């Protein structure tokens, strides 16, 4: 089997504090993996390490079988490794459509074009339209992102990632701040992603986790505590006590 993403023995410390401990993890095409664990377990840090925001203190990240540990966030993004942020990061002076356009421009390598026009420009407009429709944001296309309600900003955040047509997508609490009734918009969007894509998502909403994950990784104190199918995890007494509590 060829894994899209493989993480080997990854570690990270901030000063004396070890936040990631020898993590091994693989994501294959079509995977829908949930990363759960108590607050401060190191989930976001792990995503930061994989996406290249942080440099690990040890271990390797491999993409399509080749090492990317030394590559920058930007280079990894070019290879299809895309993530969203737990705390939304959007371009505050822009409208929804422009925000998506910016992402599409980077995707299509059009940064140094000094004018619109040509076929790739149409391509950009089309993909922007598609994402707006998928996320039901058509009404908001010309609104400034900074004036949107928080939940809508989360949608745009996801839209930015989708437009990048990732191969591995890492979502840090994609549904946080989105009302329960609307979280399906987000999850539908994820569901509808091309099957061969690998998805890793962090989520504290167990309904969503159990509904969408096909595999769950439980992270505790920076290390992988256990991995399993949703049923296995739900049945795991230790996980219940430590993390799930009365949920599910």
């Amino acid at each position, binding site marked *: 089997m060829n894994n899209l993403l493989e993480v080997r023995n990854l570690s990270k410390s901030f000063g004396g504090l070890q936040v990631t401990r020898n993590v091994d993890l693989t994501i294959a095409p079509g995977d829908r993996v949930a990363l759960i664990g108590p607050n401060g377990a190191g989930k976001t840090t792990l995503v930061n390490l994989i996406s290249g925001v942080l440099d690990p203190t040890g271990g390797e990240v491999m993409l399509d079988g080749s090492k990317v540990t030394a590559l920058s966030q930007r280079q990894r*993004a070019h290879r299809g490794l*895309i993530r969203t942020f737990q705390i939304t990061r959007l371009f505050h002076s822009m409208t929804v459509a422009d925000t998506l356009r*910016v992402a599409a421009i*980077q*995707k299509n390598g059009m940064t140094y074009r*000094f004018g619109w026009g040509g076929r790739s420009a149409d391509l950009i407009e089309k993909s922007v339209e598609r994402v707006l429709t998928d996320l039901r944001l058509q009404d908001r296309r010309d609104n400034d992102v900074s004036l949107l309600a928080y939940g809508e900003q989360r949608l745009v955040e996801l839209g930015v990632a989708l437009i*990048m047509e990732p191969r591995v997508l890492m979502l840090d609490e994609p549904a946080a701040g989105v009302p329960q009734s609307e979280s399906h918009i987000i999850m539908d969007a994820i569901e509808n992603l091309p099957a061969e894509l690998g998805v890793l998502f962090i989520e504290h909403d167990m309904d969503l986790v159990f509904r969408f994950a096909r595999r769950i990784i439980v992270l505790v104190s920076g290390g992988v505590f256990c991995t399993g199918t949703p049923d296995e995890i739900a049945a795991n007494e230790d996980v219940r006590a430590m993390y799930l509590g009365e949920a599910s």
Partner: protein
Amino acid sequence: MTNTQRTLGAAAVIPIVAVALVVIFPNQQAFLAQIAITALLVLSLDLVVGFAGLATLGHAAMYGAGAYAAALYSLHVWAEPLTGLVVGILAGGLVALVSALMLMRAHGLTFLMMTVAITQIIYEIVNKSRAVTGGDDGLYGIMMQPLFGRFEFDFYGRLAFWYAAVVLWLVFLLLRHIAASPFGLTARAVRDDGGRVSSLGGGIFAHRVALYTLSGGIAGLAGALSAQTVQVVGLNTLSVTYSAEILVMLVMGGTGRLWGALLGALVFMMIHHYAAEVDPVRWMLFIGAMLVMIVLFLPKGLFGGLEAAVNRLREGART
């Protein structure tokens, strides 16, 4: 209004204003030429301040580089004006490119102080190279050939003004085009959150360098225009003080909109000129008070205020 109409309308503004200025101020064309050149410089500054979101006190470095390069070129190589402009662009762009490699990872106060440092170092070097640059006495003796081989530079500054105004016009149209392009949109994204752009695979460092170099090239062009029309280049073209003055013009006019740069330069120069004429002693008090008022009452600068006023009129007309 359709987009084309809008573009045509925008394109007509500079020529109309230029003609109007000449009609109103027929005997002050050297001054008007100064305004046009300054507006061009402020326009280039807007790329750094408005589009990249970086406050700089070092923009004169590129302006001065363009001015000295064009002056030396005309003194020692060829006194033809248009190629001189190209030399100015190259010099300004080169200085910008080299300093961008140092600067473009910094922002905020750090960036500001680094631009100051670079400008001061260049200033000192030019000051010390007296044999080449004339040092503090200035570089003089520049005699330009006629433009296109036909139009003589007259001492009333008539040609100087039209020459500068046309260059300003062309650059303005170019920049408007660029601002709306993928490059321009990316620039705004980089300004808002550069880290986010690199998480999308955008090369923000390279992009910033490109933007800064473009800005530097235009600043150099303005410098070359100044050298050719004034015929003397002084160290003041390289000073931090001058950088600060054009920054004030830009912020006063409104950043990030290009129009603000033009309006800021025009209004500041006019007010400075006439306030200093009316009361050479106290005009600074007046300008200072005016800046304070603008900040308090026109948060988006003169252009923002103008726009709001126009909108209100329109709304009023509609109801």
